[in-house]
């Protein structure tokens, strides 16, 4: 019996988290339903003129995606904390940085990726020009990955609290701001025909920074939460 290697262990964790998510499909559907509901409310509140909606669409889509994502960020480590799996994870000989990254990866695959994939549908509901759809998906793919990584820091810090929902929003919303600014700016640039490369590049840079640092912070947060 040999201990699994680092990558083997990470892929095992990733598979485990994905299977758990698939067995609770309502948790996967929740953020998507929230996205659909909020987007459906905007034409009622702002009026149904297509031109007006198209003007607001980049910001509306990005804000809604961010909020749907925020809804789920609390749950990354929650059930593992409740049933004691997290204690075992912290004692595992494999580096916690990569284990945390596996958890975050599974979370992104079941929230951010799906939000990005379905976003063109909602974008058409808001009359976003078809030319901007590609940039919307790309910016959401990059942006929600950053959101997942940042959200995991808040989730790790608040996992020991019974009701950490509001606290986690306060902790991580300020960190979400740059992603929102550059994400919606990329879509706005695509709508008005300006180059979108710089915005996507900045989102990519944010993602690199978050991959390097966020799992470290999340791992430290988990150690503190388990110890408390």
């Amino acid at each position: 019996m040999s201990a699994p290697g680092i990558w083997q262990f990470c892929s095992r964790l990733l598979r485990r988290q994905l299977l758990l998510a698939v067995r609770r499909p309502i948790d996967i559907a929740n953020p998507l339903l929230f996205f659909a509901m909020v987007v459906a409310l905007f034409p009622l509140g702002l009026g149904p003129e297509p031109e007006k909606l198209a003007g607001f669409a980049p910001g509306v889509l990005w804000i809604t995606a961010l909020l749907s994502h925020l809804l789920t960020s609390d749950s990354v480590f929650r059930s593992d904390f409740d049933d004691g799996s997290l204690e075992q994870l912290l004692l595992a000989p494999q580096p916690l940085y990569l284990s945390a990254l596996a958890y975050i990866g599974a979370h992104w695959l079941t929230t951010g990726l799906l939000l990005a994939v379905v976003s063109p549908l909602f974008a058409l509901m808001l009359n976003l020009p078809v030319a901007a759809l590609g940039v919307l998906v790309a910016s959401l793919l990059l942006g929600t990955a950053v959101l997942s990584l940042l959200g995991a820091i808040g989730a790790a810090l608040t996992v020991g609290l019974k009701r950490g929902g509001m606290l986690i929003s306060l902790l991580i919303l300020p960190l979400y701001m740059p992603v929102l600014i550059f994400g919606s700016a990329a879509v706005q640039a695509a709508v008005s025909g300006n180059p979108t490369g710089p915005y996507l590049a900045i989102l990519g840079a944010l993602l690199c920074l978050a991959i390097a640092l966020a799992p470290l912070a999340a791992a430290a947060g988990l150690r503190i939460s388990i110890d408390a």
Partner: protein
Amino acid sequence: MSTNTAGTLLLAAKSLCLERGGRELFRDLSLEVHGGQLWQIEGPNGAGKTSLIRILCGLARYGYTGQVQRPVPQLYVGHHPAVKALLTPRENLAWHASGAGLYTDAQIESALARVGLYGYEDVPSHTLSAGQHRRVNLARLFLSSAPVWLLDEPFTAIDKSGIDELQSLLAAHVAAGGAVVMTSHHTLRVDFEVRFLHLAGSVT
């Protein structure tokens, strides 16, 4: 289980002090666990048994003074069963978060059979009882190759035959040169010397 660890130092704690809520739970506690020993930590509720186990396994990192040396891999079984309700017992063991060994299906099946869960390998764990969850967790002991076992109340929610089975497993592990540190109020019936560590605000 490796057989060459009998008599070697497997876990050492030096001058541990712990204070909780203004009360000193233990002071200057030193402990050397060698292969082939079984330590039972005793004491009334709130005496710091669980805190001590968590310090020994490395979950508690702050709030105490002293050093712990862990030269060999450990296996920790805590109060929580660490069993995912949405996974089957087989998946729970094969993908366990503790990052221990790679097990074959046959190994997992025999471990589950030995904790009395034969036939339950592939049912979702949420259909199992609390005691069966504990048993899934204890199946890790049959699979483990870690020389040191740190067990926090391993007999909780286990029925009589399960307790007998577990006692003989602990005896076999100790006989093979491993070491066990456990908290329990249960009087162990084993045919070798059990070392006691009594926590009662002051250490004897």
